Structures are given as structure tokens and as C-alpha cells.
């Protein structure tokens, strides 16, 4: 029986095979890639926008008020008739509130982190971790409300009596501390868990107790991550607005007494809007000057935190 001869490919194809693909398809692929690139570039635009807008208005402000007076002046009476533009009282307010917040959040946060990563069993973790996440999800205005209407009257007044004002850096500081506690705890915990188990084994084998291993070997090994967590939490505290707007006070601080009201940089910015602010006025521009200072401070802290985390990650292989 004659076998039907099937023409092979090499017999059929006389011209070279065209692998260049459909023109339309390539064009639309390129278009899509371009569109997505634009989306990505958008995020760069946002940063430029923030920087640009802040600089633009701040420069206008500094034409009226010398930079040195702004940065080193110690009186801020922006909303009064006699206007003085020394920003130090606002910076002081921010610093005091932040410091108190860190005093609350860092010890509690670190201890929680050590407990969660070294001691807690899976059942306990399944309760505590969601609780921390919930705490992290509470809107900051709720903490502000809490500070104003609970911390001050029910906790601080009995303690300090007359000394404490109804709005104080202390009350706000405590609330800000509670707000950043989950952040500090979870960042620190991630770092501590990342320490290799072999280090712990080495310590146990020397006859160390669990506590000694945790505190003297594991935590020190995680130091850089913990420092990065600390700085990031501090940055969050500095940028916090609503808690201080409600509970820290509307008057720029004279001194360092946390029992008094101290307006922070962020609180000032929203305080301006209780009245009517006119576009182009000096008050309007002062918002951006303070905003610029705030932005630079938080940006520096964020970059520093990232740098520390990256640089010291290779401490142990």
C-alpha cells in the first residue's frame, strides 16, 4: 500500500517564517506599558507636588518674615492682633508631646514585643495580635476625644488637681503614646522574630535562662530594627494632629511644663481654620511655613529609619 507522503514543513515553507508578530498587538502592548508608567510616575508627581506647594507658599511667607526670626524666635502669636512669628513654642509643644508619647509607647511596646515573640504561645498570640491591630485601626480623633474627656478629668485631675489645665501636653502625650503603641510593638516584634533561632540555641546551651537569652542576646541582636521602629514611631507622633488639636491646647507654650496647654505645629495648622483664613494672607502662608518645617522633620526621620534598617540588616548572615 502506498504511503501517502505528507509534505514536511521544510518542503512547504519557501519563505522564512515570520516571527515578528501582529503589528496591532505590539502597539497596544506598548500603549499599556506607557499608561502604567504614567501611573507610576504619578507618585513621583505627588512628592514633587507636596514639596513644590510647601516651598512656594513658604517662600512667600519668608519674604515677609525673615527665616531666622521664624526659626529662632520664641514667640508665636499668629492669631492675635500683634503678630509674632517665632516658631520655637510650636516646636517645643511638638517635642514635649512626642517625648511623653515615646515614654509611654517605647517601654510598653518593647516589652509587649518581647513577650509576643519569645514567650507567648499560639493561643495567646491569637488574642493579642488582633487586639493590637484593632488598636492600630482606631481613628486618631477617637484618641483625642479619649484624652480630652477621660484622661484629663478622670485620671489626671485626681492626680494633679489644680495644677493641670483642661488641655495639657501630658494628656495629649499619653493618648499619642497609646496611639503609637501598636506600631512600636508590631515593628519591634517583627525584628525580634527575625533573629535566627541558632543564636537562641547557643545561649540556652550555655545555661542561660529564657530571660537572659531574650534580653542579653536576642534583643541586642535586633537593635538596629528596634531603633528603626523607634524613629518611625517618633515620626508618627510628630505628625499627629487630631489628638493634640483636641487635647493639647490652643496656646503656644511659654515654657516646658507638660501640665499646661501647649500648641503643637500640627495643632496650629488646623487651629487657623477655626476662623476664616484668606488666601494670600500672611496667616495662610504661615501654614505652609510650619508645614514645610513639619514635612522636613518627618521626612528626615523616615529616611533615617529606613537607612538604619537597611544598613544593619546584615549583622548576622
Amino acid at each position, binding site marked *: 500500500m502506498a504511503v501517502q507522503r505528507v509534505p514536511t514543513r521544510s518542503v512547504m515553507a519557501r519563505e522564512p517564517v515570520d516571527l515578528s508578530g501582529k503589528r496591532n498587538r505590539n502597539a497596544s502592548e506598548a500603549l499599556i506599558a506607557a499608561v502604567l508608567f504614567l501611573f507610576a510616575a504619578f507618585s513621583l508627581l505627588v512628592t514633587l507636588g507636596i514639596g513644590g506647594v510647601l516651598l512656594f507658599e513658604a517662600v512667600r511667607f519668608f519674604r515677609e518674615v525673615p527665616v531666622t526670626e521664624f526659626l529662632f524666635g520664641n514667640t508665636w502669636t499668629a492669631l492675635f492682633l500683634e503678630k509674632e512669628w517665632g516658631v520655637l513654642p510650636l516646636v517645643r509643644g511638638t517635642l514635649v508631646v512626642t517625648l511623653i508619647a515615646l515614654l509611654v509607647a517605647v517601654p510598653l511596646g518593647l516589652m509587649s514585643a518581647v513577650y509576643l515573640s519569645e514567650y507567648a504561645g499560639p493561643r495567646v498570640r491569637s488574642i493579642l495580635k488582633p487586639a493590637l491591630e484593632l488598636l492600630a485601626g482606631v481613628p486618631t480623633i477617637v484618641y483625642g476625644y479619649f484624652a480630652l474627656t477621660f484622661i484629663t478629668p478622670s485620671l489626671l485631675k485626681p492626680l494633679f488637681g489644680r495644677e493641670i489645665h483642661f488641655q495639657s501636653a501630658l494628656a495629649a502625650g499619653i493618648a499619642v503614646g497609646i496611639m503609637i503603641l501598636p506600631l512600636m510593638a508590631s515593628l519591634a516584634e517583627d525584628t525580634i522574630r527575625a533573629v*535566627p533561632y*541558632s*543564636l537562641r*540555641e*547557643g*545561649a*540556652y*546551651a*550555655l*545555661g*542561660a*535562662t529564657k530571660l*537572659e537569652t531574650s534580653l*542579653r*542576646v536576642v534583643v*541586642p*541582636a535586633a537593635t538596629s530594627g528596634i531603633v528603626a521602629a523607634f524613629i518611625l514611631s517618633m515620626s508618627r507622633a510628630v505628625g499627629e494632629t487630631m489628638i493634640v488639636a483636641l487635647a493639647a491646647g490652643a496656646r503656644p507654650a511659654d515654657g516646658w511644663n507638660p501640665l499646661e496647654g501647649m500648641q503643637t505645629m500640627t495643632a496650629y495648622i488646623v487651629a487657623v481654620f477655626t476662623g476664616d483664613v484668606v488666601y494670600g494672607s500672611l496667616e495662610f502662608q504661615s501654614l505652609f511655613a510650619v508645614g514645610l518645617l513639619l514635612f522636613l522633620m518627618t521626612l528626615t526621620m523616615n529616611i533615617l529609619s529606613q537607612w538604619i534598617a537597611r544598613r544593619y540588616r546584615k*549583622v*548576622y*548572615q
Partner: protein
Amino acid sequence: MATEIPQTPLRAASVTQFKEHVDPEEHERVITISDLNVYYGDFHAVAGVDIDIPENRITAFIGPSGCGKSTVLRCINRMNDLVPTARVEGSITYHGTEINSPKVDPVEVRRRIGMVFQKPNPFPKSIYENVAWGARINGYRGDIDEHVERTLRQAALWDEVKDKLKDSGMALSGGQQQRLCIARALATEPDVILLDEPASALDPISTLKIEELLRELQQNYTIVIVTHNMQQASRVSDRTVFFSLNERRQGVLVECGPTTKIFTNPEDRRTEAYITGRFG
């Protein structure tokens, strides 16, 4: 039991040298393991092990991987306590005292029975601190500097690091790191040192250095070493314990005896098969 023992002495094909030793039977038994059974959850990992560890001698645990050598080793210093699913039954006595008793504090045990791990794990601290820390937390009441130097000399590391004690322990080479870990273990002045495949992650030269070190240390310490390298076991140990898996995939002790005997004239067929390379 062996059915045929060839008349000519049997030699593991690659073993060419043996350690000069005195019969270990005469020495005092520091550690006695009786009827040791270890369970991980429901899995019966190690069944019915009996071993005597003689003082100031090197005892090697050999056998194919996964047959329980490291598990038994870790029972000796109660490291298995750290594994939540592990359960240890049987008796392990140390100088006559039962280690597995609930009245015994594992922290105390680990102070006297040191351990060196397979992969060098120095602390991310300075070389000095790596050695000093263990001593310090255990309440060493003497000159720590002197103690660090003495310990590093014992570990044959002093000359190489004496000028850089403040440098990080992790900046050393693999072999040096492992000797640092040995120094660290020596710093608590144990009298038993357990080593879990200490040279398997190292290059051949470092391996030989460590074996040399162990032979020196043996004069003052009781050493138990787990190794999958038969030549190493024959070069270094006085007594060898051979582990294997039984039909139920449990780790069991097959044979235990002086090293020369195990490698030239083993009593058990399985031992013979392993050392001649027929399996494992």
C-alpha cells in the same frame, strides 16, 4: 547478631588510621543512659537506648542520617526541653544524679554540659564578649580577662585573635567561628562537651584543626561527638556508638564499643554493613 564473621580482620575500606587509646572500659562513667525513649508528639523517634560515656574520653555517635544521634545527644543537656512536642522517657545520669528528674533545673545542667552546634553560631557581639558572656551570667567570680585568655588558648584560637578581641565574632572565618563557639562552651567550665557534627560545615583543614583540638581537650574534658564522617570517628574517638533505624523507622542503638573493635571487628551485621559502605 552476626551470622558470619570473616576470619580476616575486617576493615572499613576508607579507614586507615586509628587513635592510640587506653581501654575506655576502665574509666569512670560520667554519663549513663538507660532505656532512653524520645517521642515527638506521637512519633516514637528513639527507642530503648543504653550508653555509657566514659570520663575524659571521646565517644562518637555514628550512623546514617535521621537515626536519632543528634536527638540522643540533645537529651544529655536537656536541649529537647525547648521543643514543645518532645517527650523524653528513660534515665540519664550525670555523675550519678538523674538529669531527667523534675527537681533538676536544666539551666544548671547546661552549665556543666556544654554544647557546640553544627553550624557555627557566635553571638553578634565582640570575640571577647562571646566568651565572657556565658561565664558572667553564670556568676564567675574571678578575673574575666584572664579567663577569656585562658579559654581562648584552650580552644587554640588565642594567637589568632588576641589583637582583635573587640572585633565582632562574626567577622571570623568559619573554622575560627567554630573554635570560638568551642571557647564559648568552655567558658562555663563544664566537664562534658557535646558536639553535634561540629566540622560538617567546615573545610577539610579547619576540620583537622578541630579534631586536633578535641584530642587535646580530651585530657580534661569528657567529649561526645556526633559525626556522619566515619574517618573522623576513627581518627578522633576512643569509643564509638553506632545508631541505625529499625523496621519501625525508630532510632535504635545497634552496637557500642571501643573504636578499633567497631571498625575492624564489629559484632553486629548492620554495623559491618555501614562501615564498609554498603549502606548509609
